[in-house]
């Protein structure tokens, strides 16, 4: 969604991963949050006490607003890189 300046930014190859049951793609090694942002997905989870959506906020691994789940483990989407076939779930509780 966000415009990229013309080359010379060269990125790694595109890989596929899934988030919350949907397929997405991104550059191998970029963070989950950034790969999703590129495709317009900024709602990463719901707030703990309300159904309000939350997304990446501090971008440095502190606020914990961006947490997602990989293999049942909570990870910061702003820090975890994507790789081919990675299955990412939304935090459910």
């Amino acid at each position: 969604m966000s415009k990229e300046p013309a080359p010379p930014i060269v990125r790694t190859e595109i890989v596929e991963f899934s988030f919350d049951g949907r397929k997405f793609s991104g550059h191998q090694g970029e963070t989950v949050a950034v790969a999703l942002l590129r495709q317009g997905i900024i709602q990463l989870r719901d707030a703990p006490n309300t159904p309000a959506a939350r997304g990446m906020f501090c971008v440095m691994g502190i606020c914990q607003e961006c947490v997602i789940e990989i293999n049942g483990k909570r990870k910061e989407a702003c820090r975890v890189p994507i790789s081919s076939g990675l299955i990412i779930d939304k935090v459910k509780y």
Partner: protein
Amino acid sequence: MNFKFDIAIIGGGIMGCETALRLTEGGMRVVVLEQGDIGQGASGVNAGTLSMQIKRVKLMPYAIKGHAIWEKLGEIIGFHKTGGYTLAFNDREAELLKERMMLKKEAGANISFVSLNQLKEKEPNLANKVVAASYCPDDGYANSSLTGYYYRTRMENAGINYVEKFKVTNIRQTSDGYEVSSGENLIIAKRVLLACGGWMKDVAAMIGEELPIRARINTVSVTERAPKLMSTVIGHATGLLTMKQKPNGTVLIGGGWQGKGTPEEGRGTVATDSLIPNLQLAKYAVPKLSNVRIVRSWTGFEANVPDFYPLAGALPNKENLYVLGCVRGGYTIGPYISRLMGDFILGEEPEMPLFDPSRSFESA
């Protein structure tokens, strides 16, 4: 002399505050002196377990009464009666469990032994390694974080004077009362109650009382919200694990593992080499905890005398000087034993006996 206060209570934890409330009911003018904030000592940072299975045999009747007081308060202090299991992971522990729980049962706790099938049904996430378990339907927990809020509000409503950030540095006996001071600030009262939790030894020493007190520093940890992993309070035969999941999904893990520091030095610190086995044991009991993240570990102080029974009564060498502390399981027992203490100071016969601080302290 005309005293503004009939009694100065040093320490604004459960013991100090609840006694203050009783004494006020009984007509006394009370002042509570607290070095920090009301209910931010052990009373506000403990694990909140209200378990009969971890109470000492002789203290069981007190624990039952204390539990009933918290139960009546219900939501205000986050009370939940969930039942609780105590686990044994090998034959030696099973033996220990049997022996101990029988005695506790005789002392009045509603404890039974359960089959592993029953256990599995109720707590499917427990490890298969359990070899024996006991159960008490009365076990549960409350939210100790709310202690400060609760007692502040009650003391406000009862019109009790309490002074925060008043660290008692000196106590002096006068001809007919006491001068309690914090630096320049002085409060005069006819009586003094020492209810200073883990700090008791040093405060008692200010008035010349040498009590054989040792401070302990317990560790508690909490996880972030997790899927449902347990519905009861989980304990361990040795007492080295208490664990429960709060309605919001967070899991609180305690068990009396020791941190570092002394009450004089500040709030104490978490020791890596006792935090890790504490968490290992928790994970051993509920393997699914593996994936859950710890968000905070902390410590709190409590005091013990060599026989691990409370100090609750009048100190022998001086008139009108009282002590209440060193209560093992004091979050559970606190509200009740404090009321007894209040009755005693008011000159009434307490419903159950207190624990004479001038006894000889043989190790239990």
